[in-house]
């Protein structure tokens, strides 16, 4: 593991914690003490723990500071009034660790945590019971007789019955919930099997009979809880990793009062008709109309359009857009529920309701399995009665059938495979939010890509240098470095990379929405759009972005920029097509820009200029055609389509809402995460199916033995344990059948700051 991150190049301001707003993050930690939890994505080694804890404890008023490396969080406790939480964030930022406050109540964390602990406690109880009951059972099997055997059975009952009641709850509640909805899941036969086994064993113990199956009941629960806990761990891990990407949404805005004073208020307190000031690098907190100033706005995350748009007095702006070059004064026209963003969220919610509930593979099997098992048990009972046996013996045989078919191996068949698969994907920086997502990914037959930020990296880059003397280029560099416009930044970064220095100019001024102006040796120079330079517009638009540098004495020089494709974009598309999947490109950008990317990646079907609704409609249309669509997108405008997809993926750089909508999130730049995830998902599915075959084959052998009444507790224990072990061993094969991919340095991508909330994230 590499050690501490290179401090994140931070032209990102650390998030401001306004005193009012800070309250919701704090918790009570004793008399006069407060506590706050901060997410620090950059913590990844021992030295980080040391640096952070030492630095935090050096702050006056801090009582304790503790780093949680697993969750990448820092918990700080301090004496009220002696220090403000904002200090912690600033100190951490100073050390090179961007941090943000974390509320454990958000996004179901607390619930996750509680569920995990409950499962672990149940697992511990089941483990305790299983080992002790097994100890007693082995004594019985090795020949304990009469009073000793009865004593051992009673002791077993004493341990096993409370353990079953306690540790079996996760299964009982799930089974009850399924039955109440008129469905059958795997937990129904499990619960029935465990409960009947315990009751029958108790009956036998009371009557001093030879066979009691307490060990079977508790070991069964133990194995199943292992599977259940693994499943939980997988989801919690993905959720934790994704939450670290989440950032503070622009919660504050600057209101301009009637008397002209500026005041920071919460975005939720904005009302239509209010005036707000939006600084350079800030996002609009509400929809509005510009009343003063001119600027360029980046709306790519909203619309997928790659070129920034010049805006001036009278133009409408939408919440979520990024103000790039000039301060603006805006009257608010819509807030909260009326904004464009809120419309999208409603669209998403509606889509999710339309989606029919997906039935997991194991539950699909349970639909056939449970009735079959119950019919077998019933016919055993009937058969024994018809042969003239006593009710007691007939019932015993029937219950033995239920015990032996209790789907221990089936309960492990899927979670065991999925935890191995998700672990492999996790090491590659791909996070699966649920087991269902993995199952669905294996079934997709159509892949729909978004353009900006998904097929491309979402930031313009200079590809080739125009033919011009070096002095001119270094003048361009000198002008460009003065601006935060994405194209200026791309130009200055591109020139810097080629080793071209910057010449300082005099009287440099930026004219928002138009370009830059400066003077060199008395000659005026301009850098910006064609219109700014007074050059006629292009007659042929090839979809590339350009800026021009012009001097009075010479013809203008044009610099061209492209949004570079993600590494492996072309190879990924080709690979998907080889595997027989249909590939489509849906974008909100201009036709020329989309056509260009479609051609470069080899995608034949593309649609340009789509609204979020139109993207959603296309995905729905494909779904109605019976296709299973994997939607890959990142922007706010992709969110409804992501929610509508059969499966969905988003890069870690996506907008918060995009990552929330997607059920798989991948780190790093390379697009081959899509093919890799799909290959693993398919492999996992086939191994899960093999596991089912193993489990069912075992039943085929064991059921006849049970029906003839020959099952002793020893036979049941051996059969169950061995089938479970076979299933687990088979699952581990998944890890071996792939040469371990070179792990993406898990720490590095985690600190790339997402776009929505770092004002310069997009342009940087």
């Amino acid at each position: 593991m590499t050690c501490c991150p290179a401090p994140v190049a931070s032209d990102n301001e650390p998030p401001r914690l306004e005193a009012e707003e800070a309250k919701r993050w704090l918790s009570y930690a004793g008399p006069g003490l407060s506590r706050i939890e901060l997410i620090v994505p950059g913590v990844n080694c021992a030295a980080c723990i040391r640096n952070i804890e030492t630095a935090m404890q050096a702050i006056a008023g801090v009582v304790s500071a503790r780093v949680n490396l697993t969750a990448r969080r820092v918990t700080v406790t301090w004496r009220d009034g002696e220090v403000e939480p904002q200090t912690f964030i600033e100190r951490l930022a100073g050390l090179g660790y961007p941090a943000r406050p974390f509320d454990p109540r958000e996004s179901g964390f607390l619930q996750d945590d509680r569920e995990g602990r409950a499962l672990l406690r149940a697992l511990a109880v089941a483990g305790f019971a299983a080992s002790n009951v097994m100890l007693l059972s082995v004594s019985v099997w090795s020949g304990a007789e009469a009073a000793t055997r009865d004593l051992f059975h009673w002791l077993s009952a004493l341990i096993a019955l409370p353990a079953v009641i306690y540790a079996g709850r996760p299964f009982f509640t799930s089974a009850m919930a399924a039955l109440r909805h008129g469905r059958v899941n795997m937990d129904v036969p499990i619960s029935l099997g465990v409960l009947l086994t315990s009751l029958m064993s108790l009956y036998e113990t009371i009557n001093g009979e030879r066979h009691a199956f307490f060990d079977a009941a508790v070991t069964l629960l133990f194995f199943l809880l292992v599977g259940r806990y693994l499943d939980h761990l997988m989801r919690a891990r993905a959720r934790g990793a994704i939450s670290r990407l989440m950032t503070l949404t622009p919660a504050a805005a600057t209101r301009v009062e009637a008397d002209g004073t500026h005041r920071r208020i919460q975005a939720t307190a904005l009302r239509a008709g209010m005036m707000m000031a939006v600084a350079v690098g800030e996002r609009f907190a509400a929809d509005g109309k510009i009343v003063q100033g001119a600027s360029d706005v980046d709306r790519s995350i909203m619309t997928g359009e790659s070129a920034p748009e010049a805006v001036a007095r009278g133009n409408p702006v939408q919440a979520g857009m990024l103000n790039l070059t000039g301060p603006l004064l805006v009257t608010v026209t819509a807030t909260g529920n009326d904004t464009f963003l809120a419309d999208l969220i409603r669209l998403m919610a509606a889509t999710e309701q339309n989606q029919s509930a997906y039935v997991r593979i194991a539950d699909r099997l349970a639909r056939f399995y449970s009735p079959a098992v119950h019919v077998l048990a019933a016919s055993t009972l009937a058969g024994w009665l018809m042969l003239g046996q006593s009710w007691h013996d007939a019932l015993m045989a029937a219950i033995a059938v239920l015990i032996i078919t209790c789907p221990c191996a089936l309960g492990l068949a899927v979670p065991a495979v999925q935890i191995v698969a998700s672990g492999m994907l996790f090491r590659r920086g791909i996070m699966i939010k649920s087991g269902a997502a993995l199952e669905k990914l294996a079934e997709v037959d159509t892949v729909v890509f978004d353009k900006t930020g998904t097929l491309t990296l979402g930031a313009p880059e200079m590809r080739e240098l125009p033919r011009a003397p070096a002095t001119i280029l270094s003048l361009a560099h000198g002008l460009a470095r003065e601006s935060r416009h994405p194209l200026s930044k791309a130009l200055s970064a591109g020139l810097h990379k080629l080793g071209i220095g910057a010449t300082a100019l005099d009287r440099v001024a930026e004219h928002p929405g138009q370009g830059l102006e400066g003077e060199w040796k008395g000659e005026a120079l301009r850098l910006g759009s064609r219109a700014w330079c007074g050059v006629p517009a292009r007659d042929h638009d090839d979809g590339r972005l350009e800026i021009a540098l012009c001097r009075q004495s010479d013809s203008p020089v044009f610099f061209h920029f492209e949004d570079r494709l993600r590494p492996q974009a072309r190879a990924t598309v080709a690979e998907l097509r080889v595997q027989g999947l249909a590939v489509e490109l849906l974008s909100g950008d201009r036709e020329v820009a989309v056509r260009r990317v479609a051609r470069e990646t080899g995608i034949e079907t593309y649609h340009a200029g789509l609204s979020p609704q139109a993207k959603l409609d296309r995905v729905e249309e494909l779904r109605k055609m019976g296709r299973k669509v994997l939607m890959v997108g990142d922007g706010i405008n992709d969110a409804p389509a992501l929610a509508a997809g059969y499966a969905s993926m988003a890069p870690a750089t996506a907008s918060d809402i995009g990552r929330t909508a997607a059920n798989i999130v991948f780190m790093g730049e390379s697009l081959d995460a899509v093919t890799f995830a799909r290959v693993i998902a398919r492999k996992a599915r086939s191994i899960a199916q093999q596991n089912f075959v193993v489990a069912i084959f075992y039943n085929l052998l064991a059921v006849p033995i049970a029906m003839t009444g020959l099952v002793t507790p020893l036979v049941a224990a051996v059969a169950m344990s061995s089938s479970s072990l076979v299933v687990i061993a088979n699952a581990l094969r998944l890890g071996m059948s792939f040469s371990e991919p070179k792990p993406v340095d898990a720490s590095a991508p985690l600190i790339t700051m997402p776009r929505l909330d770092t004002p310069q994230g997009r342009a940087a």
Partner: protein
Amino acid sequence: MSGLIFLIPLALLLGAIWLVAFLWSLRAGQYDDLDGAAWRILDEDQDRTKG
């Protein structure tokens, strides 16, 4: 046979002690940060982290 009279309760007691110890350590948060614990053991300056 008579040995069982105290051997069995002893076995159960040991198991119960383990169970209680585990539940206590779970509640005390000892499983909250397994990665961090692995690194902290290498840290010589123990006094720092009383939190």
